[in-house]
């Protein structure tokens, strides 16, 4: 090998490298939009699938919600706005829904969207062979549970197409939030012809998929980090869609996102807690809450008998809650836009059907989430006397992420201010935390729950005595009764049902059944000229149908 030649090649290559680079950066247009009705958005993770039955994450859920449509579309504040269903009739005491579908709804391949597409899509999701991880949402629809467990044939599911434009759904019992569920991607129709055409490749690229929503996806190869949503001209309500194109780029590092935002390449990015400090007053700063509560569970079945006794003592439970200064914790420890919990159910999830007040305000129990160290110390002392113990050593189980570690250290610090209480931290990987929680192998655990849909029951059903995810074994006959009523007797009575749920939450908080700590939120920089983005705290978070650039 001739070194001289190699050296020459290197010099030439180096020079052309720089030259090409300069060209490249000149060519890329600054695309902040300016009435072009194009926006550049970011996602923090890859898009794993476009298969409606298999989506489990927020990225695919958002993509599917904007490229496809079900009987309804979830609008502002979780409201139900028109989708493929033109009219809905509820009969048989809330157990039969008859949907009349609009005739002008089309798939992007030209096929008509018919009632059969819904029947096919639903049956595909509950089919155990599909192994959908959200099939449990179908619970309550006739025979769904048995089908999921492989005990009945898929064809027995309570959904029937009467002709092309009439869909009849039969339920086992009235489901108060059934219409909301119809706006959830797992209940969207699927085109049998297309699913069969692509077989196991269905939903693995943007071309191996068909769309009936406001946008069509292009440019997703199944493993790349960028894709586009372009306006779907075949969408039945295409005249309401103003955006021509939404470009998505996966950006996993917040610092990269911020640099892209500041250089005008993207119009939205998420911020880390460090960045929040510097951008809190920026005009583009926006906090988006999610329906996700982080709370502490106390194991009433603890193998350590003294601890089990302690956690059954209300004064001790209250002392543990009162000693946490949630404001200080959220603002100085987390600092990422997260909010102090006002209760176990998250805020911004559901509003009183009559007064429009947020659920958390209706069900607010101050003592359940306030900070009062003096009172905490007093109650702890009294509680310890009642159970006849001098000192307690609690292990606090939590995830091993940086954030979870900071959280458990903070809680440890606060709890150790109670005399006679020693706390050791136990940070483990998420999956380990999960399995130890469900098997009851913990003293206290910092858990999180996200609502699947915008109804408080999505939270409240968790702490009934028989629920598998009631890890701390909270047991209250009153609570069980309120939840049972909300899901049964009062399902068709909006006001009574609301009151049941409010009472359940109040009972849980008065008992200090769990210790809510904070509600997760994500801080964003979103250009102020992006208008009409509908954001909900649960289900599919973003609805871009009415979005526009001003």
């Amino acid at each position, binding site marked *: 090998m001739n*070194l001289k030649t190699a050296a020459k090649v*290197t010099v030439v*290559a*180096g020079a052309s*490298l720089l030259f*090409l*680079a*300069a060209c*490249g*950066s000149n060519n*890329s247009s600054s695309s902040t939009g300016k009435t072009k009705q194009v926006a550049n958005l970011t996602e923090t993770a*890859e898009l*794993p*699938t476009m*298969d409606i039955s*298999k989506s*489990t*994450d927020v990225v695919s859920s958002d993509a599917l919600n904007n490229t496809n449509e079900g009987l309804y579309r979830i609008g502002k504040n979780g409201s139900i706005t028109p989708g493929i269903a033109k009219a809905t009739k509820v009969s048989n005491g809330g157990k039969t829904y008859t949907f009349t579908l609009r005739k002008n709804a089309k798939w992007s391949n030209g096929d008509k969207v018919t009632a059969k597409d819904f029947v096919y899509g639903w049956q595909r999701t509950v089919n*155990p*062979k599909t*192994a959908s*991880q*959200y*099939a*449990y949402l179908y619970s309550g629809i006739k025979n769904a549970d048995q089908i*999921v*467990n*492989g005990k009945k044939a898929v064809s027995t599911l309570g959904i029937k197409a009467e002709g092309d434009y009439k869909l009849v759904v039969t339920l086992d019992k009235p489901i108060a939030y059934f219409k909301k569920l119809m706006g959830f991607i797992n209940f969207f129709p699927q085109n049998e012809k297309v699913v069969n055409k692509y077989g*196991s*490749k269905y*939903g*693995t690229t943007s071309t191996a998929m068909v769309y009936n929503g406001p946008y069509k996806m292009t440019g997703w*190869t*199944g*493993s*790349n*980090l*960028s894709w586009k949503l372009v306006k779907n001209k075949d969408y039945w309500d295409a005249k309401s869609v103003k955006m021509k194109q939404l470009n998505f*780029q*996966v*950006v*996993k*590092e917040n*610092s*990269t996102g911020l*640099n*892209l935002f*500041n*250089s005008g*390449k993207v119009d939205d990015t998420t911020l880390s807690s460090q960045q929040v400090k510097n951008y809190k007053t920026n005009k583009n700063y926006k906090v988006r809450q999610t329906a996700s509560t982080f709370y502490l569970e106390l194991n009433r079945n603890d193998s350590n008998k003294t601890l089990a006794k302690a956690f059954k003592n209300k004064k001790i439970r209250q002392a543990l809650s009162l000693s946490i200064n949630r404001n200080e914790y959220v603002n100085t420890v987390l600092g990422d836009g997260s909010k102090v919990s006002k209760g176990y159910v998250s805020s911004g999830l559901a509003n009183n059907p009559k007064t429009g007040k947020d659920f958390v305000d209706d069900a607010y129990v101050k003592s359940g989430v306030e900070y009062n160290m003096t009172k905490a110390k007093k109650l702890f002392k009294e509680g310890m006397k009642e159970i006849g113990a001098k000192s307690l050593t609690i292990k606090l189980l939590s995830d091993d992420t940086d954030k979870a570690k900071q959280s458990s250290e903070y809680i440890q610090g606060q709890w150790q201010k109670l005399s006679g209480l020693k706390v050791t931290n136990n940070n483990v*990987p*998420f*999956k*380990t935390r*999960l*399995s130890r929680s469900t098997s009851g192998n913990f003293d206290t655990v910092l858990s999180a*729950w996200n609502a*699947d849909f915008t109804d408080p029951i999505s939270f409240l059903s968790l702490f009934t005595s028989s629920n*598998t*995810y009631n890890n701390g074994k909270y047991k209250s006959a009153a609570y069980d009764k309120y939840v049972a009523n909300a899901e049964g007797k009062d399902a068709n009575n909006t006001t009574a049902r609301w009151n049941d749920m409010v009472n359940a939450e109040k009972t849980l908080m008065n008992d200090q059944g769990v210790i809510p700590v904070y509600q997760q939120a994500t801080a964003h920089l979103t250009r102020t000229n992006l208008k009409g983005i509908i954001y909900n705290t649960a289900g599919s978070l973003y609805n871009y149908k009415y979005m526009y650039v001003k």
Partner: protein
Amino acid sequence: MRKYLLKRIFYLFLTLFIVATVTFFLMKLMPGTPLQNEAKLTASEKASILAQYGLDKPVWLQYFIYIGGIFKGSLGLSFQFSDQAVSYLIGSRMGPSMQLGGQALLVGVVLGIILGAIGAIRKDTWADRVATILSILGIAVPSFVLAILLQYYLGLKLGLFPVAGWSGFSYTILPTLALAASPLAETARFIRTDMVDVLSSDYIELAKAKGLSKFGIVYHHALRNSLIPMVTLIGPLAAALMTGSMVVENIFSVPGIGEQFVKSILVNDYPTIMGVTIFYSALLCLLLLLTDIIYGIIDPRIRLSGNGD
């Protein structure tokens, strides 16, 4: 030579087989399942979904099914990217990583040789000190710090290169530079040390005495001899660079394989863990084999043969 090659290739496959076996059983010791929505599924729901994927079978049976699949040429389907073939995932993710790795290796090694040679020729002068400081920095400053600095100053402030993304050659420059720092530093230190030795050896003295030009000596006699041991360095360097850097790829939003591997472990994506492990091992084995062959070609003192060991 042929016998030697056949033997090495046999060992390569044996190594891969052992790696695959050990990884498979270690992987099965990890807690948890590949289910993404695990927190919300009941035990029976989990069991029925896992049964669909054949994960309810005894581990040894799963192992034979997997190995059988490999012989049929299938690495299975990913869990995190539902239904995406692992071979497709690796194939499409490998391209960007290899391109970046290759470019970084080229830039790093070439600049490193130049820097190292300058250091050796101008030993104990300011030029040597600057070269030494640069190579120490290259090793001491982690690639992600460099990546962030490059992105902020060259990308955002000066606007010379795209900040992040992957749509053309210009997008590869900043990540290449960030990745090139460490091979550059390593090469420079290596070449300097080696050349200092060579330059003080008898045959160089002889060449000097014969009145050869300084460039001629350095270029024809010193550098060439110093380059031979470089080959051993480049093999593992290439493997390390081409298998992707999770941090640098994340910072520049490069659709590479670096993060894939780490993430697949975190989410118990068994087929992807296996696929990427086997692929990485194969790449490393191949590069090592290649190094040995090249060694034999360029250095006559080393003879490759099937016997004698």
